């Protein structure tokens, strides 16, 4: 698979090389971890790219390479984009962090934007969305809706972004349903429909009637639909084709406004390295339509939580909270700081199992 992706990206890079080189256009590149048709994560990033094209029309040219493996391949694809005259490059997966930093060093005049990472440089910004705010809403619905009290969670890689999501969903499911138990499976992939479906089936076989996923394809939705009596949530994209059941709601990543603003900044020459972390309030995280399968009172509760988070009245990580080992983390009323959240590498109290190191 690695080798083909490598060849595929090489072929794409060649395609870029023969592309037109219009000097006055701002050229924006996108590096994707999955195919644009994954129906989830990459699909939403590509919608952002299309929004940039639509907004700026002839003034901008966008290019993208999809299914780029996280690792040395990514570095090569970025280098190629920079050599082809890209002014701004968005690298849209956590695993592109070091490659982005390395390539950015070689091209000080090209601006880079890395999604979901934490390393910055004078020409590298990082941006991410507070997905955990959406996870809080999901956890509330999941805790209220589960009958078996077992919630299955498909994790991709044990990185802070995923762990934050697990913790946030758990805290809020537990709050409304003290008997709830989380079963967590690590798929070690962002995108592998067959494996994601297998993981969902395994969790369902072991009694889960709610499946939360942090992988990119819609395969777990299909597996849940096949099994029946299981609810799911759209991940990264609305996945509304699976509504009203099994998909009862979703977290939608809306990257378009950010991509347009950053492209504008490059055009105006005002681009600076920033660290952006937006949530429900700014509209980067959206909660998809809660379907009629959810009882009205649960829906109202979930929406009230969403509004409280949006207005800043409530933070999903508010004390008292303990870590898994029982040690104190947040005191009564204390709110987690962004630094701890960004590097989160521990479960909260009550979750079972260990985080793979």
């Amino acid at each position: 698979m690695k080798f083909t992706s490598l060849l595929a990206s090489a072929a794409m890079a060649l395609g870029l090389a023969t592309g037109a080189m219009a000097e006055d256009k701002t050229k924006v590149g996108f590096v994707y971890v999955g195919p644009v048709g994954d129906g989830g994560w990459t699909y939403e990033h590509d919608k952002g790219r299309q929004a940039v094209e639509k907004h700026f029309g002839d003034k901008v040219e966008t290019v993208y390479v999809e299914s780029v493996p996280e690792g040395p391949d990514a570095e090569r694809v970025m280098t190629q984009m920079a050599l082809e005259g890209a002014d701004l490059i968005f690298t849209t997966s956590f695993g592109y962090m070091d490659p982005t930093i390395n390539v950015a060093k070689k091209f000080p005049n090209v601006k880079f934007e890395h999604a979901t990472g934490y390393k910055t440089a004078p020409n590298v910004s990082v941006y991410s969305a507070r997905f955990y705010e959406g996870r809080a809403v999901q956890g509330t619905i999941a805790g209220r809706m589960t009958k078996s009290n077992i919630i299955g969670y498909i994790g991709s890689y044990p990185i802070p972004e995923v762990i934050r999501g697990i913790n946030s969903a758990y805290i809020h499911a537990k709050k409304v349903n003290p008997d709830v138990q989380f079963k967590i499976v690590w798929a070690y992939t962002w995108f592998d429909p067959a494996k994601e479906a297998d993981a969902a089936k395994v969790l369902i076989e072991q009694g889960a009637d709610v499946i939360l996923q942090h992988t990119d394809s819609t395969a777990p939705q299909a597996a849940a639909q096949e099994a029946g009596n299981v609810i799911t949530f759209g991940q990264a994209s609305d996945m509304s084709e699976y509504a009203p059941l099994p998909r009862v709601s979703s977290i939608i990543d809306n990257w378009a406004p950010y991509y347009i603003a950053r492209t504008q900044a490059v055009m105006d020459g005002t681009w600076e390295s920033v660290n952006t972390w937006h949530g429900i309030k700014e509209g980067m995280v959206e909660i998809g339509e809660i379907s009629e399968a959810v009882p009205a009172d649960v829906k109202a509760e979930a929406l009230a939580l969403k509004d409280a988070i949006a207005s800043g009245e409530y933070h999903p990580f508010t004390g008292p909270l303990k870590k898994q080992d029982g040690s104190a983390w947040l005191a009564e009323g204390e709110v987690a700081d962004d630094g701890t959240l960004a590097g989160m590498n521990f479960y909260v109290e009550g979750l079972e199992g260990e985080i793979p190191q």
Partner: protein
Amino acid sequence: MNLGEINPILLIASLMVAATPLLLAAIGELVVEKAGVLNLGVEGMMIVGAISGFAVSVETGSPWLGFVAAAIGGALLSLLFVLLTQFALANQVASGLALTLFGLGLSALLGQSYVGIKPPSMGDIHIPVLSDLPVIGPILFQHDPILYVGIALTAGVWAMLKYTRAGLILRAVGENHDAAHALGYKVIRIRILAILFGGACAGLGGAYISLIRVPQWTEGMTAGVGWIALALVVFASWKPWRALLGAYLFGGITVLQLNLQAAGVAIPVEYLAMSPYIITILVLVILSADKSRAPASLGRIFHASH
């Protein structure tokens, strides 16, 4: 941790489902390689089979027609490989890789309007008495029909290679194409048939993923199964039953490790995640300690004038 949460019956039943796409693709490739041709395009033929099967079964409402279309789709794509390697005498490795790239792109194009659609369900077979047996019923007699096609194909290919004249000729072509040619066998024709068979099997394997295992269409959804099938053929020493064993081991451990994770077994997840690859390779390498070797003409180009 609670091992009691793992239901062994469901586990075995789902490992057979997880193994079937791999088995179908590997059996097809095994025949191709036995005929002395190395087709690295399995992944491409699988994904084209996945989308052609999906599209046809959605349009017609019949999963059976879908599987037929998947076999035809995979075979059609392998026809391209035939043209390149058997007539234009191109390098087989390069042609196979090109086939995979082409297949991935073509399937993404064909599949644009099929994202998010639910295919018609094939349903599981139900044999009176047998399917109702405790334990054995759910494990052996309550699957979709294609799973049995996979096992039947394995048996058929094994018997054909071992006991029939056709199998002998196929092996002769794969071992020494010049000698086979001197004896009057149509080397090119036999190889073309083998390649088409391999394409059809890969197509079936792909459609099994998009119609039964997942079931949906997503770009790039075979996600490397074709490459694992290729490796499996080598580690199975070109023997059909070992390919079946390997596929079941691989599928089985993949499902088992997910089960162990969900049950909270205290084995580091990294080890669990790599276990399907390691255990499958280990078992098959130990098995191939006998004097199995690759067909002698594997990957070599044949031209009657040589």
